[in-house]
């Protein structure tokens, strides 16, 4: 249980960012005609920030199928995240795997995988991180919906920077060698180009695939170099 609490507490530095986004989501949901209870229900049931934002944005014009498809496409990056934690979850029961997948977010995944890499992670830590982000996201969504238009845009105060900065802090755990650094630099550049020139969220998964593939390729090159 100690690890559960460690995981839960590890989400605290990221919580202000989650809360800022949650408030914004709740307020936006109100504007397209959700009741506070409905806005809350979406967060409790779906728990996927960027997808919820996108869906609220298209709510008045789109039907069920586009909404579900949009959710699917925006969350496709979780396939990559899932694949990369899967080896660490191998020994767990199917029930535990199903439970950990349920609330896996970008933030809790990043915290958990960094801790696994340090050799201190386990499923309780992962669950704690999932629960921490879930609580922050769902509660702030409800709050935002209740407050309605009373608070101004949180991004004006840079609150949306909490995530990138938190991810930056976590990134250092993976820059142990030259290849890790090369992967981060190349993927970052690729994602930047993609964001500027290609619309949509596809770029995260494409850059993630290509960038991690580059890591493997460089590893092979290095290996051939040493053995020759």
């Amino acid at each position, binding site marked *: 249980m100690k690890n559960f609490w460690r995981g839960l507490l590890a989400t605290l530095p990221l919580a202000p960012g989650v809360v800022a986004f949650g408030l914004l989501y709740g307020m936006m949901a109100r504007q397209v005609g959700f009741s506070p209870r409905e806005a809350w229900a979406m967060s409790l049931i779906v728990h996927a920030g960027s997808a919820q934002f996108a869906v609220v944005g298209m709510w008045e014009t789109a039907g069920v199928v586009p909404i579900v498809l949009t959710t699917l496409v925006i969350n496709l990056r979780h396939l990559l995240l899932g694949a*990369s934690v899967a080896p660490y979850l191998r020994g767990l029961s199917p029930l535990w795997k199903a439970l950990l997948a349920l609330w896996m977010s970008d933030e809790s995944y990043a915290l958990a995988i960094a801790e696994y890499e340090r050799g201190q992670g386990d499923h309780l830590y992962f669950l704690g991180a999932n629960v921490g982000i879930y609580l922050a996201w769902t509660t702030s969504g409800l709050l935002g919906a209740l407050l309605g238009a009373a608070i101004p845009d949180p991004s004006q105060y840079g609150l949306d920077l909490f995530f990138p900065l938190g991810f930056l802090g976590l990134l250092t755990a*993976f820059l142990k060698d030259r290849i890790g650094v090369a992967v981060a630099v190349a993927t970052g550049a690729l994602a930047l180009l993609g964001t500027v020139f290609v619309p949509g969220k596809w770029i995260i998964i494409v*850059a993630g695939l290509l960038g*991690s593939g580059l890591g493997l390729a460089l590893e092979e090159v290095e290996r051939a170099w040493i053995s020759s």
Partner: protein
Amino acid sequence: MDKLLIFFGMALATYFTRYTMIAVLGREVPPLLQRWLRYVPPAVLAALVVPAALAPQGRLALGLPAWAAMAGAFVAWRTRSVLWTIVGGMAVFWILWMLGA
């Protein structure tokens, strides 16, 4: 009430993306795939950070987020701490913001 049905549809789509790989790769992960997957976290994290810092509105911009991220990168490099990275980056953001930059 049909809102609830849509929410469950969205939840199902989300769960599919989160659970599939964890379930499928449950047993033996091939060594080559395993080595490849080790590079996924730095790749995905960088893909999330760089555009948010340098192109927050989808256009290349050397604004406050970029300076905050550079300060954050320096703090991250020195401390390897999530908390201090956020504190350092936000401090730079807010100072520049108050200076009206």
